[in-house]
């Protein structure tokens, strides 16, 4: 395993909150193994806005205290087995949300404001179980209740992207939730398929989809670093591998056996 990935994992300390992206946006699966080996536990995961394989693996490895999410699943491969089991056993605290509420919380942090209002939610048990959320009367109109979502400020955001340049600028294309995570988080750790010599900001075509190095704490190269997830514009998801995991991780023992062989990067056939 690359030393730079291990070094990035060391920035995570016990009890931190980690923002992790939805399965199709660019999950840094390459960081999963280093995070588990580093072993910082008691983590509060913020899924942006839902979680999958990486979240399930971190839970299975016993590193997670709280999951704040709109959902956790393995998509076509079915339910997330270690997450589901941990909820049933009461091993983790679950903060159920809805996707736009997670986006609103990150947006509030991005703006440096304490909260954002959002529509919906009223009358749901999602809202009823979130004492940290509020409902107020819209001060600009008569009898219009509206839900408020407090700012979400993760300690660390971690994601995978196609490329970065030597200055630490990262190309995220149109996956703007990756920027939202980075704006909101204190630190952002990024793995990339490749590091390019040209400046991504020198060309307007790439500059428009670039997250400036201002928001990026560290970058490391990890080819096929989203596998078994796909990476937009680069490679597709490996559904067979996700299904292999889903079957293996039904039990704690099966999970441990699977993880023994999982290095976080695709092993050439």
């Amino acid at each position, binding site marked *: 395993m690359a030393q730079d990935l291990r070094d990035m994992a060391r920035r995570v300390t016990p009890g931190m909150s980690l923002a992790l992206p*939805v399965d199709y946006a660019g999950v840094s699966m390459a960081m999963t193994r280093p995070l588990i080996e580093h072993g910082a536990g008691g983590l509060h995961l913020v899924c942006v806005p839902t979680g999958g394989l990486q979240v399930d693996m971190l839970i299975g490895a016993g590193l997670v205290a709280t999951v704040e999410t709109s959902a956790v699943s393995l998509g*076509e491969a079915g*339910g997330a087995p270690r997450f589901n089991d941990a*909820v049933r056993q009461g091993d983790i605290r679950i903060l159920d949300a809805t996707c736009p509420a997670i986006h609103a919380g990150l947006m509030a942090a991005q703006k440096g404001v304490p909260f954002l209002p959002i*529509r919906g939610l009223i*009358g*749901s048990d999602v809202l*009823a179980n979130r004492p940290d959320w509020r409902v107020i009367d819209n001060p600009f109109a008569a009898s219009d*209740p509206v839900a408020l979502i407090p700012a979400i400020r993760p300690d660390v955001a971690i994601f995978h992207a196609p490329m970065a340049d030597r200055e630490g600028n990262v190309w995220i294309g149109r996956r703007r939730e990756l920027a*939202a995570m980075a704006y909101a988080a204190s630190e952002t750790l990024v793995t990339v398929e490749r590091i390019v010599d040209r400046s991504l900001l020198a060309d307007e075509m790439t500059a428009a989809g670039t997250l400036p190095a201002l928001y990026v704490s560290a970058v490391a190269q990890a080819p096929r670093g989203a596998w078994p997830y796909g990476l937009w514009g680069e490679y597709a998801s490996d559904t067979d591998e996700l299904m292999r995991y889903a079957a293996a991780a039904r039990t704690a023992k099966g999970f441990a056996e699977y993880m023994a062989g999982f290095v976080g990067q695709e092993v050439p056939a």
Partner: protein
Amino acid sequence: MSAALPREILICTIARLLDGVRHVAVGASSPMPAAGAMLRRALDDGQRPVRLSILGSVEHNFFTNGSAELFDSAGQGRLDAFFLGGGQIDGQANVNLVGVGDYPQVKVRWPGSFGSAYLYFTVPRVILFREEHSPRVLVDKVDFISAPGTSAPGVYRTGGPVALLTGKALFRFDKARPGFTLESVHPGHDLDEIRAATGFAFDHAETPAATPAPDTATLSLLRGRVLDELAETYPAFAAEWRSDLAALTREGSPA
């Protein structure tokens, strides 16, 4: 061409429910709604543009502002239709995507509420879709309300449920009552079976209509263009569908 598979009748029903939409979105892990939306778009080709957003798809996703844009566009009134599933759906159209038992330590945990607690309020035509039609899914009262079917007067709500489609039948939702009315029964099923499989009370005609099967032109569009489009986002589902079609051809008669 061989007769329609049960799932093809469902997909064609979904396409019918989407008649007239300008923009429809499909969530993650929803191959049949995606296929129905793709069929709608294919049927309307050259007449009216149907925009389709499939979360998780590269090809069928025109958003450039990340995963928040779907919700923002719904909040702006730019999204006409959306699909919701549900581990449990009750007679008031409340939807539970969280789990069975006492929250939070539920006995059975499902993925979670996704965008339901927002989109159910902001999308005018929400179609409830759940293939399993059984008393454990269609319950009298859900264990957890991910999203409520109706709201108190004064709560901002431009959207909500219009229909419930299952593997056995199609219901319409009346928000004034509120409650479901059986609209049609799929081929091979009957009212007694629907009654036994539904955990909530619903209105129905003495002899409910049968859900229509697709015509040959629609079926060939579905098995050609739509199946090809679907394979990009839902490869496993598409492969299974193709293998069922191949089996149908080998048998030489519909299953």
